[in-house]
């Protein structure tokens, strides 16, 4: 037998959940743009964490999830978008995402979790919209992989098909209201921000997404 084993020692699962890869505080955080940086603990997305964006269909969930990519994308981080079958490319560019560093897997079908896991090694942020209700086991495996790789997983869910596991950070859209003039102007979203640890105390905010320039902004 070898003097040391390349396999990891088996640790109690409750201990594994608390372990974090060693990294400096700065590199552990991926930057977040306006207005989200003021609404979350430490002002960024912690590497290895899972973010759940939950919204009724058509009320801005996709825009919110994509707007979380903007600042990191502008700083040169790669992002992946899995399961968003008809991405509005113009809207994504208007949000401020650098399209040159976004990989889309529009129609992964039943293999959405496997495709997401494949992409995890190559990107720093990953938006996933499961085509159907996500299973517990698939979600568990994906979140473990995310924690191991230091990626940020952003899951899009709907109230009648929620993400089956608690997230580190959650954005829940409770209300969406369009402001109009001679055209669609802006949408006011009531977003409840919650999660675990420092983010555990849920707070409710009014944000503009998209505004007249197609970007996210504070009220």
């Amino acid at each position, binding site marked *: 037998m070898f003097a040391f084993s390349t396999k990891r020692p088996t640790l109690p699962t409750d201990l594994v959940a608390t372990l974090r890869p060693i990294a400096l505080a700065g590199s552990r955080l991926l930057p977040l743009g306006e207005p989200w940086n003021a609404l979350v603990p430490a002002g960024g997305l912690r590497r290895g964490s899972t973010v759940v964006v939950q919204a009724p269909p058509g009320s801005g969930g996709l825009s919110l999830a994509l707007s979380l990519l903007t600042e990191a994308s502008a700083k040169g981080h*790669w992002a992946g978008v899995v399961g968003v079958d008809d991405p509005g490319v113009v809207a994504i560019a208007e949000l401020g995402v650098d399209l040159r560093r976004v*990989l889309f897997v529009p129609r992964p079908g039943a293999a959405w979790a496997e495709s997401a896991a494949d992409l995890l090694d190559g990107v720093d942020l990953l938006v996933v919209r499961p085509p159907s209700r996500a299973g517990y086991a698939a979600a568990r495996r994906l979140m473990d992989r995310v924690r191991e790789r230091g990626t940020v997983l952003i899951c899009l869910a709907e109230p009648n098909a929620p993400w089956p596991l608690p997230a580190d950070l959650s954005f829940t859209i409770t209300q969406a209201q369009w402001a109009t003039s001679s055209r669609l102007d802006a949408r006011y979203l009531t977003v409840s921000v919650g999660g675990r640890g420092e983010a555990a105390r849920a707070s409710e905010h009014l944000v503009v997404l998209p505004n007249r320039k197609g970007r996210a902004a504070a009220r």
Partner: protein
Amino acid sequence: MERLLAIYIEALCEEAPDGSTLRDYLALLDALSVLCPFTESVRLGLYVLPIRGPSRFYGGEGAVLEAVAATAHEVVGHEASLGIADGLFCAELAARERLLVPPGSTTSFRRAQPLRVLGREDLVSTCRRLGLHTVGSFADLESARVAERFNKHALALHRVARGELSELATQRDLKLARRLGQLRGESEPQDEQMGFFGQRSGDLRAHAAVHRVRGRLGPEAVVVAALRGGRVPEDRATLVPWGSPVSEARDDAPWPGQLRAPSPATTLHARVSVQLRDADDQPVRMGSRGLFRTSPRTLLFKNLVRRDVVWHAGPWPSVERWWGLSRRRAHLQLVLASGEAVLLVAESGRWWLVGIYD
């Protein structure tokens, strides 16, 4: 068939081993694209552009011919053979003979050509023995008779001879666009720089991940997006499989009448047919000036799902490329009673759902 100006430069047809031919070809393509943005690179030595729009702009076909000839002389130093006719096949023939075929005369021009212009020796010799010497006499054969004697490629030639197809399959160099893209430096191979512990840089990690997903789902599963010029979101977005050449077309030109931000976060790949009904549950009609006769109250999907319309903006009509393949459309924004907002387009008397402000 569209009236085309073909630009044929014999000196650029044969590729020089030092790559100068391709560079000159690209330089002239860029220069011609300034004169007319719809200039196409057909193959080495041949460009084509739709003549109607530019001739209105420059003040006649003669003015365009002069501008093009001057540009070609200035950029590559060779004299260009120019020709105008309908369709690529006849336009190239006209250019080789330096002819301007007047509107409406393309058919007689084509029929008078010798059969060898179709580029198939066996066809020429067989037809000669039958006493057929011109494209016109070949075109008069019944296509069933042609199909009996020759293969499907000859059938395509027969359709070209009859004027049902505008170009020969052999006229275009399908790999040229990719080679020009490479020459522009759009997909240069990159050197890998490993980190101290062998970590790969972000770009290379991403590339490796793409290969894994493609191995699982197929070569077109991973796509990348880019913007190009256009008025509405469905025209401005391009999604291409990862690794295919992306044109360096930028989205910074002014487009009068462009639909302004915010744009729909979901832009449907295949638009969905819908119906728009007024208060009396009758289809909403648009007048000749692009205004509604009655205002929309209900959006009706194919599966009979009905949604109440609480607000609408538009319709914003647009007529594009009116000089050639005219396209009339009108866009409309709706807010539904459920709070969702959608983007519709009216085209040829029907309404389509093209975007959801998701």
